[in-house]
């Protein structure tokens, strides 16, 4: 226990090796494989977002890192230590639950001091640490209130303070922003980023909101069906999605996906030739084509003709809500900066090559 107190302020790197979690159904039903051979290294001192839709295994992964769930297979390393079989209280982590899990019968101060008392830190020092942490997260004036008297945002800050006060080497957050209203979300995610920068603790947070993850993470890891889909800098993952899922998951408004086919080195949607590339020669036949909303250039002699249903003005940009027979969804969006180019009902566009992705129809793997 002493070691945790003396560990340096800077966080530690985390390595997940072949991590697998299977939930066995005791009543004879189907077993659920929540996490499947998850393999990732989280660099020390970074803020990493674990992103994916509901049920993709991200919370399960988080709880395995915390030690609340035991992996079926695989290993977890904190730095060089294999902590796979180590119980949570000995791992030196702080965890902020989605519902905060603040002890309702204790005041804010008592909640924050709780872990320090467990670590047998003398009362004076513990009080000082508590007050410092309260100031850091911005709740210094609420120390003598009880959780029920606080708003959601305040409760969450208390939860963060409680997690950080024992100077853990890893901070874990489970869907930190999902219980907050929209306005508070923006504010709070900035707070999280700021706190993480000031303390330098390796931080992993789990979310299903891609905008959230994109905005504050140093790195994001995208998950689906318990399997890692892609990881990297947010912008890179956005610009270079490895597969259809990642392309569809990131980006607001979402990417438009069309049925297309390749012939030689040409890419077609319907009758229209969109672009050409040598690499297409290796992937002949039917493909899925993803075009980012910002990938359309208005051109009266453009290659792609699009009928649009109506114009949506978002203040900053104009987006056209359009439909197309080859589109996989009922509608897709095109974002234009300049509204003067809009012609009524139908427009023609050129497609930017760097905003257009071609995917294998069966596997979803990116081809171009």
């Amino acid at each position, binding site marked *: 226990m002493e070691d945790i107190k003396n560990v340096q302020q800077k966080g530690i790197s985390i390595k997940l090796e072949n991590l697998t979690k299977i939930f066995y159904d005791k009543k004879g039903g189907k077993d659920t494989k929540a996490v499947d051979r998850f393999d990732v290294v989280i660099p020390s001192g970074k803020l990493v977002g674990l992103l994916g839709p509901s049920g993709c295994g991200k919370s399960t992964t988080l709880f395995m890192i915390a030690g*609340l769930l035991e992996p079926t297979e695989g290993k977890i390393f904190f730095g060089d230590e294999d902590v796979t079989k180590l119980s949570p*209280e000995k791992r030196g*982590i702080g965890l902020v639950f989605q519902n905060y*899990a603040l002890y*309702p019968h204790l005041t804010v101060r008592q909640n924050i001091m709780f872990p320090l008392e467990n*670590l047998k830190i003398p009362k004076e020092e513990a009080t000082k640490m508590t007050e410092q942490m309260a100031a850091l997260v911005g709740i210094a004036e609420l120390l003598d209130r009880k959780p029920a008297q606080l708003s959601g945002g305040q409760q969450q800050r208390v939860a963060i303070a409680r997690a950080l006060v024992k100077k853990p080497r890893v901070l874990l957050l489970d869907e930190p922003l999902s219980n907050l209203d929209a306005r508070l979300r923006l504010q709070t995610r900035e707070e999280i980023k700021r706190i993480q920068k000031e303390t330098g603790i390796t931080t992993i947070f789990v979310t299903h909101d891609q905008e959230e993850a994109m905005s504050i993470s140093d790195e994001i890891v995208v998950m689906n069906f318990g399997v890692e889909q892609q990881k990297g800098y947010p912008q890179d993952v956005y610009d270079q999605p490895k597969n259809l899922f990642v392309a569809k998951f990131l980006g607001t408004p979402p990417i438009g996906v069309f049925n297309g086919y390749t012939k030689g080195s040409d890419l077609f949607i319907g009758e229209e030739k969109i672009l050409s590339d040598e690499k297409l020669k290796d992937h002949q036949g039917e493909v899925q084509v993803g075009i980012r909303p910002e990938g359309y250039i208005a051109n009266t002699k453009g290659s792609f003709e699009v009928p649009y249903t109506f114009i949506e003005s978002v203040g900053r940009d104009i987006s056209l809500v359009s439909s197309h027979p080859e589109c996989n969804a009922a509608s897709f969006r095109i974002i234009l900066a300049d509204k003067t180019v809009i012609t009524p009902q139908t427009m023609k566009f050129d497609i930017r090559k760097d905003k257009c992705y071609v995917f294998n129809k069966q596997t979803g793997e990116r081809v171009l």
Partner: protein
Amino acid sequence: MLEKKKDYHAWLYLIIPLVLLSIFTFFPLIKTIIISFDNGYNKWQDAFSFRFSFDSYIAIFQYPPFLQTLKNTLLIVFISVPLSTVLALLIAVGLNSIKPFQKVFQTVFFLPYVTNSIAIGMVFAVLFNLHTGLVNGVLEIFGIDKINWINRNDGFFQGSYFRKMFVLQAYILWDALAFKILVFIGGLQNISKQYYDAAKIDSTPKKRVLMRITVPLLSPLIAYIMITSFIGAFKTYDSVVGIFGNNWEMTKDIQTVVGFVYQMLRADSINSYSYGAAAAVVLFLIILLFTGINLWVSKKRVHY
């Protein structure tokens, strides 16, 4: 339209129950109190003497057997209730923490609840019997002589009030666990697992989890149990009769206040009902007092 208060047919549903309640609950309440203040109440003729006095009350407080029952009752209340509550809590926490065999244990612990107090009291009497009881049999193995726990003086083996009280307390404790354990288990299962997860992350030692998380979160239930148990304990009667029988002369050293009340119903003197009524009222007032104290203490220490 639906909310009109002139709905008289509701009274049809209530008429018989209310009549019954009036005859057997409300009316007796008042009459018993009146009888307690009327020392000359003639029970053979159900006739009041219409002389208001505190005589009955004064008399019973000077009557050693009544005082003995008062002492016994208080001992039962203040020893068995806290003991059984703490023990039940520990058992419930233990039960909650294991998964295999949990249902089996639960069923076993609940068995005493469905049994007849008198019947099992007799079993205890058999267990603690001087000459053939299991308890003395076990003591024999350790080379200890037979002990007269509950029987009459038997030559060399003298009876003892202390030992009788011990056996009584043991039985009451045995009997009282079932209900409490069940209620506590229900309460424990209502505590969100997340608090325990958070406590794990906070490196909380097990004892601290119990005292600083489980108990405070369970405190409303604990308060409820203590209040109802206190009230129930003041009314102890069946347990005593089960072990010792209901012959007043032979058991009056170990009887309870309720036992005294029932004895007054069977006694010879013409005004015994008045004494019994007075004892019943005294019991009621004591219960009222302690419930009040309990509620006041709960307000201060229970976390909602």
